[in-house]
C-alpha cells in the first residue's frame, strides 16, 4: 500500500520535473543554423569533393593505386622530353594526362588518394553542394584532352620515338661496327702475330 502511494507521488513528481525542464528549454535560445542562408562552419581540412590541379598532375597513378574503391581512372601519354613544358611547381613532366576522371558516385571520401601524391595535385575541398538529378553528372572529368591535341602529342611522340629508335639503331650500328672493327682488328692482330 505504501508502495502504491510512493509510485503515485513519484509519477507526479518526475512528470513535473520533466515539464519544468522542457519549459525552460522552450524559452531558451535555439541553435539552428538556417542552411542555405547561414553556414555551419566547415574546417578547411574537411574531406568533401576532390579537386585535381591538372597543371600539377604527372599521371604517376599513385592516387589511383591508393584508392580503395578504384574510382579514379587515368589515361596518360608519354611526354617528349625537351618539348614538354614543366609542371606548375617546376618539376619535369614525364607523362601527359590525357584523361583524368573521378566518379564521385563511387568515391568514399576517405582521403587516401591525397596522401601519396608527390606534387599535391589532388586535394580534398570543402565543396559539398553538388547534388544532381542525373547520376552521370557525378562523374567529374578534370582533364580531357581533345582528339586533335592527343593526336598531335601522339605524333610528336611517334616522331620522337622514331628519332630515338633511329638514334638507338644508329648507336647500335655504331657499336656493332666498332665491335666488328675491334674484332677484325683483334683477328688481324692475331693473324699478324701468327
Amino acid at each position, binding site marked *: 500500500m505504501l508502495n502504491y502511494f510512493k509510485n503515485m507521488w513519484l509519477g507526479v513528481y518526475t512528470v513535473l520535473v520533466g515539464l519544468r525542464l522542457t519549459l525552460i528549454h522552450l524559452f531558451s535560445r535555439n541553435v539552428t543554423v538556417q542552411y542555405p542562408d547561414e553556414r555551419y562552419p566547415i574546417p578547411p581540412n574537411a574531406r568533401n569533393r576532390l579537386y585535381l590541379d591538372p597543371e600539377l598532375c604527372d599521371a604517376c597513378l599513385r592516387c589511383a593505386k591508393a584508392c580503395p574503391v578504384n574510382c579514379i581512372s587515368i589515361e596518360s601519354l608519354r611526354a617528349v622530353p625537351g618539348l614538354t613544358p614543366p609542371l606548375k611547381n617546376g618539376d619535369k613532366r614525364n607523362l601527359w594526362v590525357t584523361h583524368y576522371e573521378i566518379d564521385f558516385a563511387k568515391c568514399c571520401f576517405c582521403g587516401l588518394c591525397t596522401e601519396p601524391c608527390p606534387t599535391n595535385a589532388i586535394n580534398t575541398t570543402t565543396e559539398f553542394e553538388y547534388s*544532381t*538529378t542525373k547520376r552521370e553528372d557525378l562523374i567529374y572529368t578534370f582533364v580531357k584532352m581533345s582528339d586533335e591535341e592527343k593526336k598531335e602529342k601522339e605524333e610528336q611522340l611517334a616522331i620522337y620515338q622514331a628519332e630515338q629508335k633511329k638514334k638507338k639503331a644508329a648507336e647500335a650500328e655504331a657499336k656493332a661496327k666498332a665491335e666488328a672493327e675491334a674484332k677484325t682488328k683483334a683477328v688481324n692482330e692475331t693473324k699478324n702475330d701468327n
Partner: protein
Amino acid sequence: MGLLNRLNEPFEGGGIVLGTVEDILNWGRAKSDWYLQFGLACCAIEFMAVNAPHFDFMRFGTIPRTSPRQADFIIISGTVTLKMAERIKRLYEQMSEPKYVISMGSCSNCGGPYWEHGYHVLKGVDRIIPVDVYVPGCPPRPEALEEGMILLQKKIRHEAIFNKRKRIAEEDKKLGLNIK
C-alpha cells in the same frame, strides 16, 4: 492521383486560372513533404543528424511518417543489399502517388565503396526504383542532404501537372534547375 486524374485532361493553353491552380498545387507538394522514417546504413546516422537542432530538417516542411502510405518521398540512406532490394521496391510501391526518391550517399547512388567486390550489394538503387535526386558524399554532410532537398523542391515546383506549358520551359531555361 485522386483529384489529379480528373484534371489531367489535355488543356490546350490552360490559361491563367489553370496556371495559378497548378502553382498552388505544386507549392503544396513542394512545401509539405513527408518522408518515410527509414534508415539503412551509415547515411542514416547523418540523416538523423539532419533532424538534430543544428540542421533542423523540419525547416523545409519535412515531417517523418512511419507508414509508407502517408509518405511523399523516401530517402534511400545507405547501402542497398540484394536481400533488402526487394523490400525497398515494395516500400516504394506502397507509397502513394505523387512520390519521389532521394538517393543519399555513394552506396545508394551506385554501390559506392562496395561496387567492385560487393557480391551482395545492389550497385545503385536506380536499378530498381526511379531516383529523382542524387546526393553525393559518403556519407553526405547534413547540409548536402538539405541541398538535395532544396533541389527536389525546385524540381517539384517546376512540374507540369496539366500540360507542358511554355512558361515552365522558359523558366527552366532561365533557372537551369540550379541552386547557387
